[in-house]
């Protein structure tokens, strides 16, 4: 894991002192809300439906146990005993007091964490594959490149006031587990025919009110030009991105309106100009960063066979573990989606437990998934049963990864001031419905995602089944979408037709699932069947 050097720590400590002073000036009346708002947003402090909300950055979703313990302590000391893991691999606290904000940031800084650039029109927290450094199918660990981008983008003076927020994702395998093509810039670390590592750049993706899949604009950027190419992409956007209309200000609109070919031409021109401007950090810095992400001391002879005699344990192993690059190890997913629970919420007690388990069983490492679950990336297979037993005892052993019960849901109208409808109660009812009917196992992989407004924090565009909550004359209404994917076969879901009430949408999801169950062919997932038979049979079942 990356460790702060004196520059990182000094920057974060200085920001804590600065924001503490800004909060006090607001409390003393020396700043108006209009003056204070952009300052608090630069530090992740929102004013939400019920209180202030603080969004804390988890760079590329990676945490060590001391950091998870600190997050739990903040939940206990300053909030109401829980936190919410988000679809950007971050954590949010919903009940923060303004007078505590400086102390919270100071507590975070002690464990090399902060809330900088978790809001505002800047480059946000860099996201990555939650199995990075562990997955058997990656060409390299993508996190050193994510960390280099984090350092480059932190307080970058040219990119602190972009036309709109900017999200970058870095992966390093052909399997996309991070919705890479639905980011402003998606970077895939690849290996060329000569065996050299480089970066493929996808630019102009995103969800929100105008969802778009990022086109590939360069299939191989040498790693010693990575930052320069990213800078060229940002420069063209910063120069020509629309600042006159918030809804057309994201880079995806620029790329779409210029066309990918013309945008690429401009980026290449800028890139050529920048190459001799000294933008790229010394390659030695990347090498230095890489040393922080070297493999832990894996055991050479860890038992490879798992005792599957306990059927509940075997089911959890089948659903909630992922192949590891080292024989005898696996990555274990802790589901934060108990049936009827709130997706992504974890109590302070659960956070402490996950931190302890990471220390005991996963070389002190945890990952936050964009699907609002937690990963222990390096677990010896011989430790899996003990891990599972501890999770079961704490109510964290739900064996439902990638099933219809593993729902992504934004906070929705229960917490968010932008939302038009509640998301969480719908997620709760759907998981309860499918658990009660026993169809979850039969449905297999079915990714269901719910957003409470068009901003799409719940990734509804990318759900095999997506749900969008809207406001219909003051009443919650829910649109159903089918056929989306955030994986390497990225696709945008299509709306089925007229929306449904809160209870109606639960019935509608079950009807769509039943169409799949009756129409599927051998080995087909829900998404495969939808792609083969199209929308018509689903519409007939829903509206016929």
């Amino acid at each position: 894991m990356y460790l702060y050097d004196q520059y990182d720590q000094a920057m974060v400590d200085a920001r804590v002192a600065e924001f503490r002073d800004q909060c006090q000036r607001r409390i003393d009346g020396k700043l108006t809300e209009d003056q204070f708002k952009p300052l608090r947003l630069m530090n992740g402090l929102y004013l939400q439906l019920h209180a202030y909300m603080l969004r804390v950055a988890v760079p590329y979703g990676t945490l060590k146990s001391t950091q998870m313990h600190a997050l739990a302590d903040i939940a206990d000391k300053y909030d109401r005993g829980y936190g919410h893991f988000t679809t950007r691999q971050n954590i949010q606290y919903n009940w923060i007091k303004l007078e505590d904000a400086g102390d919270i940031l100071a507590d975070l800084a002690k464990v090399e964490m902060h809330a900088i650039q978790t809001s505002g029109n800047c480059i946000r927290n860099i996201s990555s594959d939650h199995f990075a450094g562990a997955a058997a199918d990656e060409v390299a660990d993508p996190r050193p490149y994510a960390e280099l981008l984090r350092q480059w983008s932190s307080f970058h003076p040219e990119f602190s006031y972009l036309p709109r927020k900017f999200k970058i994702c870095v992966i390093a395998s052909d399997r996309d587990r991070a919705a890479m093509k639905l980011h402003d810039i998606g970077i895939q670390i690849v290996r060329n025919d000569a065996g050299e590592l480089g970066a493929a750049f996808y630019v102009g993706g995103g969800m929100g009110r105008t969802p778009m899949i990022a086109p590939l604009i360069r299939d191989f950027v040498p790693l010693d030009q990575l930052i320069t190419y990213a800078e060229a992409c940002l420069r063209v956007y910063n120069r020509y991105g629309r600042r006159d209309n918030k809804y057309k200000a994201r880079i995806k609109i620029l790329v779409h309106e210029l066309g990918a070919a013309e945008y690429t031409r401009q980026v290449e021109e800028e890139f050529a100009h920048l190459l001799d401007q000294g933008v790229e950090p010394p390659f030695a810095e990347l090498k230095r960063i890489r040393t922080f992400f070297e493999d832990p001391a894996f055991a050479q002879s860890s038992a490879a066979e798992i005792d599957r005699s306990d059927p509940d344990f075997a089911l959890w192993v089948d659903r909630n573990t992922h192949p590891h690059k080292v024989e005898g190890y696996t990555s274990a997913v802790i589901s934060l989606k108990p049936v009827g629970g709130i997706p992504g919420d974890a109590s302070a007690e659960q956070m402490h437990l996950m931190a302890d388990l990471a220390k005991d069983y996963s070389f002190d490492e945890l990952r936050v998934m964009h699907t609002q679950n937690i990963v222990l990336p390096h677990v010896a297979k011989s430790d899996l049963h003990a891990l599972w037993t501890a999770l079961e005892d704490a109510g964290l052993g739900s064996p439902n990864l990638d099933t219809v019960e593993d729902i992504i849901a934004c906070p929705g109208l229960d917490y968010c001031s932008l939302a038009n409808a509640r998301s969480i109660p719908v997620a709760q009812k759907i998981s309860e419905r499918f658990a009660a009917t026993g169809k979850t196992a039969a449905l297999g992989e079915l990714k269901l995602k719910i957003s409470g407004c068009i901003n799409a924090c719940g990734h509804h565009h990318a759900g095999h089944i997506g749900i969008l909550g809207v406001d219909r004359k003051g009443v919650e209404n829910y649109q159903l979408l089918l056929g989306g994917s955030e994986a390497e076969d990225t696709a945008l879901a299509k709306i089925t037709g007229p929306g449904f009430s809160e209870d109606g949408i639960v019935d509608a999801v079950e009807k769509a699932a039943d169409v799949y169950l009756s129409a599927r062919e051998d080995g087909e997932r829900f998404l495969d069947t939808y792609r083969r038979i199209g929308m018509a049979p689903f519409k007939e079942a829903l509206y016929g």
Partner: protein
Amino acid sequence: MSENTMMLITGNDLLTGAVIWWTGSDWSVHIEDAIDAGDAAESIAAEQEAARKVNVPYLVESTMQDGVPRPNHIKDRVRALGPTVRPDLTIKPDTAANAIREIV
């Protein structure tokens, strides 16, 4: 506006961020204490914000129902109570179940 329509003033407490309602002389976290500010609502909101008694105030159209103001929009009804998915964290945990049913 109909005769039953009330104009409430709401906002957030500057220090705690808590949702608060204008009572005619002060601010309360309970919507039951809210009064119809009528035509003076905008000027009261501006005055109270300037005095830092409330943060980001705005007006909420509501209707009196069973002696309690009921905001016309669901968003303000959720604000008045708290998250419907965490009855224990609402403004009135003991009676939250009934209140949540009334929201939608």
